[in-house]
């Protein structure tokens, strides 16, 4: 089944080329991108079954054996991330298609939108699947280049202003990542992650600590971990609603995914756990305090996004199986709920003409369904008991108690405080935008059903994760077990006998 592995990368890339070729016909573009992402979703679901039953899958690209050639690896964690990201990408695409149609402009998501979106999808898949650090970098660059274009779509003054900060910060983080790759290669002579897992252990511990710090710095900027998060609330709110939604859902999570890989596979001795714990606590608190102060829904949501990244880092920093498992569960929950909230914010903007809480009001009367979906997602974000946010937070708090150290307990307290403040912030937003009387009558606009549908579906997926909470937790437990044990991944990549010998199966040479 290893032939499945390259599909999530190749299919969107080919589709992007096709979509660019038919750029004058937006309907054909829509069909191409929807079917490409549907294929990715199907492949991702298949990968979950394969990796769950048969262990990690490895494919050497171009039939070069893995320590030498480029390797694609899917284990439980990457398969799960692929499924969630494909689901979200598909839903947001449906929403943006409907937005174009609803605006009465057939070519409305400008001709470049679909190809760029598909390239973004390919980059995200590649980041999840790549088995070595350099391809992780390439995956990051693919998705970054696409995200630059999406963020500055249309080139209005506000988007260029926000985009320039985002672009410069992203370039900086990529450079940091690239420098750490060069240093790691100099120290170990390999970049394959499974290979590194063995060889890094032989490196002098001071050098190893330096490499770990460099790598984590680059990833933490991408994941928006405080104090490296200041760029995010500045850049996200200006982009079009679907773009913001997919960025908020996926891009920061790719950074979190990279942190998980680095912490579990490459540096399991985890001397930076205390630092990460402190950063997690600071991210939670600073982010949510920022959110409380905001008067604009999109900015408020961006700050809650930063704050909730803290939860995942908290789970990772505990470096226990329960912590990791809860962090993975929380990632799945947060991708869906945050995407849904940004999509709903886009609908609110459409219905109310603005996202400023000072000017919005009485939306619950004119758009009750919108109010209900927003309320549901907001409660899910804050972690009200029956929903998936609650399950994720409980898992994290349990892991914190299990750890038992003073700092972990402080983290538990910070987590509780953060979810209370999240509740306060989103209830404030709900009251002002939906419940209170509007200061001025709202413009006469309609929320198209085709746009509301995808938002509602993603929001209900976020809630329904609670229903499959048990099996999902079993799955994330298994994923976390694999991650902490490390052997399933390493053994799958480096087949015994070939380990470290660097022999290519293509003995007659070739142009690899």
């Amino acid at each position, binding site marked *: 089944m290893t032939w499945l592995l390259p599909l999530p990368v190749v299919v969107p890339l080919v589709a992007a080329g096709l979509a660019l070729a038919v750029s004058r016909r937006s309907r054909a573009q829509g069909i191409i991108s929807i079917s490409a992402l549907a294929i990715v979703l199907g492949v991702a679901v298949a990968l979950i079954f394969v990796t769950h039953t048969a262990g990690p899958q490895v494919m050497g690209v171009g039939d070069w054996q893995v320590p030498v050639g480029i390797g694609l690896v899917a284990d439980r964690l990457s398969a799960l991330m692929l499924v969630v990201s494909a689901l979200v990408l598909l839903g947001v695409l449906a929403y943006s298609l409907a937005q174009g149609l609803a605006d009465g402009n057939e070519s409305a998501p400008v001709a470049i939108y679909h190809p760029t979106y598909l390239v973004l999808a390919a980059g995200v898949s590649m980041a999840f699947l790549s088995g070595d650090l*350099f391809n992780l970098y*390439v995956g990051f*660059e693919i998705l*970054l*280049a696409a995200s*630059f*274009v999406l963020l*500055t779509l*249309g*080139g*209005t*003054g*506000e988007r*260029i*202003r*926000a*985009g*320039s*900060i985002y*672009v*410069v910060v992203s*370039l*900086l983080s990529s*450079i940091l990542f*690239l*420098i750490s*790759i*060069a*240093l790691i*290669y*100099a120290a170990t002579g390999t*970049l394959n992650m499974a290979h590194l897992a063995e060889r890094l252990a032989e490196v002098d511990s001071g050098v190893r600590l330096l490499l770990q710090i460099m790598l984590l710095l680059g990833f933490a900027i991408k994941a928006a971990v405080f104090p490296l998060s200041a760029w995010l609330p*500045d850049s996200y709110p200006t982009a079009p609603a679907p773009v913001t939604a997919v960025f908020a859902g996926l891009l920061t999570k790719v950074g979190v995914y990279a942190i998980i890989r680095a912490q579990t596979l490459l540096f399991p001795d985890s001397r930076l756990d205390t630092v990460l714990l402190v950063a997690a606590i600071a991210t939670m608190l600073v982010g949510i305090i920022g959110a409380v*102060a*905001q008067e*604009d829904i999109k*900015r408020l949501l961006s700050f809650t996004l930063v704050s909730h990244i803290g939860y995942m880092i908290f789970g990772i920093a505990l470096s226990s199986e329960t912590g990791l498992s809860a962090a993975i569960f929380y990632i799945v929950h947060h991708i869906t709920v945050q995407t849904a909230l940004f999509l709903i914010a886009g609908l609110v903007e459409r219905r109310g003409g*603005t996202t*400023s809480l000072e000017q919005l009001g009485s939306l619950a009367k004119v758009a009750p369904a919108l109010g209900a979906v927003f309320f549901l997602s907001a409660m899910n974000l804050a972690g009200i008991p029956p929903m998936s946010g609650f399950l994720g937070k409980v898992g994290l708090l349990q892991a914190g108690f299990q750890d038992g150290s003073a700092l972990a307990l402080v983290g538990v307290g910070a987590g509780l405080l953060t979810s209370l403040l999240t509740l306060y912030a989103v209830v404030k937003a709900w009251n002002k935008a939906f419940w209170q009387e509007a200061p001025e009558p709202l413009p006469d606009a309609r929320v198209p059903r085709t746009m509301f549908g995808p938002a509602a579906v993603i929001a209900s997926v976020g809630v329904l994760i609670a229903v499959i909470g048990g099996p999902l937790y079993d799955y994330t437990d298994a994923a976390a077990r694999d991650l902490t044990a490390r052997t399933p991944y390493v053994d799958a990549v480096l087949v015994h006998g070939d380990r470290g010998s660097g022999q290519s199966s293509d003995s007659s*040479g070739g142009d690899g």
Partner: protein
Amino acid sequence: MSPSLALVLVVGVLVGTGVYLLLERSLSRVVLGVTLISNGVNVLFLIAGGAAGGPPLVGTTAPEDMADPLPQAMVLTAIVINLGLTAFVLAMAYRSWQLHGHDEVQDDLEDRRIARRAALRQADSRTDDVGSDLQAEAAEARDETEETPLGAEEQPAAHTPDSTAGGPITGGDR
């Protein structure tokens, strides 16, 4: 293996000047900075690859004399990626110049508003305790109303760069 000192110095100088340029507000300097740093990193990759050697072809060079081909492949990829990204930043700097007449990265509007609100509040408490001056308060009130409305920058400004070369063109110059 000890790396060549000259190469290490080149990396240091390139990255150092690059970082200095990256701290500037003007986007075109940022582009130069990023270019310098990424060239520095490329040289760093060459250092990481070890000493120079013969071409890594089986049959041409003895295995122990071969140069490591992997860093060179990676540098090549990095160069291509940087070319694309640099082109994008240049386009963005040009667009910024079209819209604003300069290519400086600007403060976040909301941040600035919050900062101004805090400053106003401080000024208020000062004018309150000593017999407050009507004129001072009026000046502050006018200051507030002069603030550009949030939505004003949304419309893309009409731009004809060649006719009004350089000067601030219409649109939100904040």
